Structure formats: structure tokens, C-alpha cells
């Protein structure tokens, strides 16, 4: 108990020091130490873009947000497959695949565990024509990629009017340096 307090105090002190040396206006030197105690309980979560929005039935959306990723496949893969095949004429038969060679079952099996796969060894992109699911860069046209994988069929040629929203880039250029996102409007 005492040890914990001492540890907490030393952390707090290191914070204050840190804040002091990095804060132009010096406000934080006279503030109370922040309170970080307590338990924080899950509200929302997200791995890949649009997965909850697209594949989860409305009445289950909150449940999906509170199901840990390691349990999502068992709970949601069937729902995802049902919704995918209902939505897309590119998955009419069990043999239909998308351009990744994945059937409706396989594709939703991948998506149902809603985590973003990220390579630590090079190019990071949702899809750039060569690399697939190695991250998500700001400029990646993730919606068109997902529409193509949902509607585009085996070679991206099916349902062309549904498989590209024809918005290919952000409304402001991104920065090459930290913090990378464009300034607000």
C-alpha cells in the first residue's frame, strides 16, 4: 500500500517536472497532480474501417463494440456472412470469391476479428495494388477497396457502379511530417 503510494507520487512528480519543462505557460507547475485512478470500461472500438457500420446488424452494434476481438469471430462471423451475401450480388454462390480469392465465408471470417493488421517491416497500406492489409495510411482509399472486395467479384469488374464511390482522396493534403493530419477547417 505504502509502496504503491510512493510509486504513484514519484510518477506524479516526474509528470510535474516533465510538464514544467515542456509547457510554455508553466500553468501545470501550480496544478494539483492529476488523478488517474479508477476503472475505465469499454464504450467503442474499431480495427478496420467500416466493419461495424457495414457488417453488424443494427441491434447488435453496441454488443459488437463490447465484444473483445478474440471473441468476435465466434460471435459475429455468421452474421457478417448473412449480411454480406444479402448485400452483394457478387456473392451469389458458395464458390463466388472476391479479388483476394476469398469466399463469403472466408472473407467474413477475416473481417469478423476486427483488428488492423500492420507490418513493422515496410509499406503500410490497406491496399495499394500490391500490398494487402499491411496497415492503414491516411491517403488509402479504404472505402473503394472495401466496395471492390464486397461488390467487385473475382476480378474487380462486377457491379462497377457499386464498387467505387469515385471519391479518391481527402479534401486537404496530408502532411509529410508529424502530426501528418491536415489542419482543421
Amino acid at each position: 500500500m505504502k509502496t504503491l503510494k510512493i510509486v504513484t507520487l514519484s510518477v506524479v512528480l516526474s509528470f510535474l517536472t516533465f510538464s514544467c519543462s515542456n509547457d510554455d505557460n508553466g500553468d501545470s507547475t501550480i496544478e494539483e497532480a492529476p488523478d488517474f485512478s479508477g476503472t475505465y470500461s469499454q464504450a467503442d472500438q474499431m480495427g478496420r474501417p467500416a466493419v461495424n457500420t457495414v457488417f453488424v446488424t443494427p441491434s447488435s452494434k453496441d454488443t459488437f463494440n463490447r465484444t473483445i476481438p478474440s471473441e468476435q469471430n465466434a460471435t459475429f462471423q455468421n452474421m457478417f456472412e448473412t449480411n454480406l451475401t444479402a448485400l452483394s450480388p457478387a456473392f451469389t454462390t458458395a464458390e463466388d470469391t472476391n479479388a483476394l480469392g476469398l469466399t463469403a465465408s472466408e472473407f467474413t471470417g477475416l473481417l469478423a476479428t476486427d483488428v488492423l493488421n500492420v507490418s513493422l517491416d515496410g509499406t503500410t497500406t490497406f491496399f495499394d495494388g500490391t500490398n494487402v492489409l499491411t496497415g492503414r495510411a491516411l491517403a488509402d482509399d479504404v472505402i473503394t477497396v472495401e466496395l471492390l472486395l464486397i461488390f467487385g467479384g473475382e476480378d474487380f469488374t462486377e457491379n462497377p457502379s457499386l464498387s467505387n464511390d469515385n471519391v479518391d482522396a481527402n479534401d486537404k493534403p496530408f502532411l509529410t511530417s508529424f502530426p501528418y493530419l491536415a489542419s482543421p477547417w
Partner: protein
Amino acid sequence: MKNLKSILGVGALAVASFFTIAADHIDAPAVSGGSSDVTDFYAFQGENTENLVFVANVQGLLSPGETAGATFSENVLVEINIDTDGDAVEDLVIQAIPRDGDMYFFGPVAPAQTGLDSSIQTTATQQGVVEISRYNEAPIIGTNAGMSFFAGPRDDPFFMDFAQYTEIIAGNATGFNTPGTDTFAGTNVLSIVVEVPKRLIGNSGTINTWVETKTK
């Protein structure tokens, strides 16, 4: 042969709020539009290729007029989860939580517990803090021990013709327009950006990552 409209009609029942706003904006009733509503999550190699960048955005669709008044909630913990061994269970977390105008960062650090509940890892070796940037001022960047930190309003990096998708799902249109119209043009989000050396999150190979908001 099912025609497309009937297929989409069935789809619309199943996914009535399909792209009610796309990436994860307003994805579910319990969080919709509030301070814990994650809008988007990105992970990409940094300008320094030894680093990885995580971006977690909350509170989407802020008009310029609303942006100056938008604030992070001190009751909302934003937690970036990192699975380094492929079992979709977090081995490391990076936690971000605001206190009195500053955003505090803890991690990457092994969490005290995995799953739906978190405590803040105040004894983490890796920590940082940055003053939350204000609207219409230059972004404030914090650095510590190889990591970089930002928190504040930015342009929403997401882009999509959501409006036309809604028309398609409603049966009022059969396809997208050429060119489309970016429904998110001119809107802002509250953004948390953290850049971390890859050696602190597995160094090599593939990680799985996701973002959570957790409330007190």
C-alpha cells in the same frame, strides 16, 4: 435471378445504418456522436521509417464553427491495443487521457489486465504529455524518449460519398456518381496522434491493432 434493387433492399434491412457514417463514425447507438465515439483509426509507418504512427479520431463531423468548442472528455480513456503474437488479445497498450488541458500518454506497456476494463498504467516506463492544441493555432507536438504526441482538432482525414451510398441503399439510386462528392469535406475531428519506435511494439513482423474508448 435476384435483381439488384431487391438484393439491396434486403441488405438495407440488415444494414439499415450502413455507412450512417462510414469508417466508424456514429457506428452504434450507445456511443453515437458523443465524446467516446471513435470515428477512425489509422496505423502507418512514420516519416522516420523506424517508427509507427497511430491515429485515433473521436467526435466526427465537427463543422468549423463547432470545432473550437469541442473538447476531449476527462472521463474517456482512448486506448490503442497492440497484439504482437497473433491471438487478437492485447499484449501492449498505449493509453491517452486528458487532464486540465493536457493529454497524458502511458505506454506502450503491458496492461494490468486485458479486455473490457482498464486501469491507467501510471507506472509505465514510456510516458508523455502534450498540451492539447487549440483550434486555429499551430499544432503543439510533445516528444519524450523517442515518441511524439499530438492531441487536438484536425481535418477529418476520412473521405467518402456517403450521401450517394445512402441513396443507393434507400433504392433511390442504382450506383455512385462520377465524380462522387466527399460527404466529409470541410469537417473536423478531435485527433490523437502518437508516433512510437517500432522496437517498442515488436520491432519486426506483423502486429494486430485496434482502438478502444473506455469510460469512467
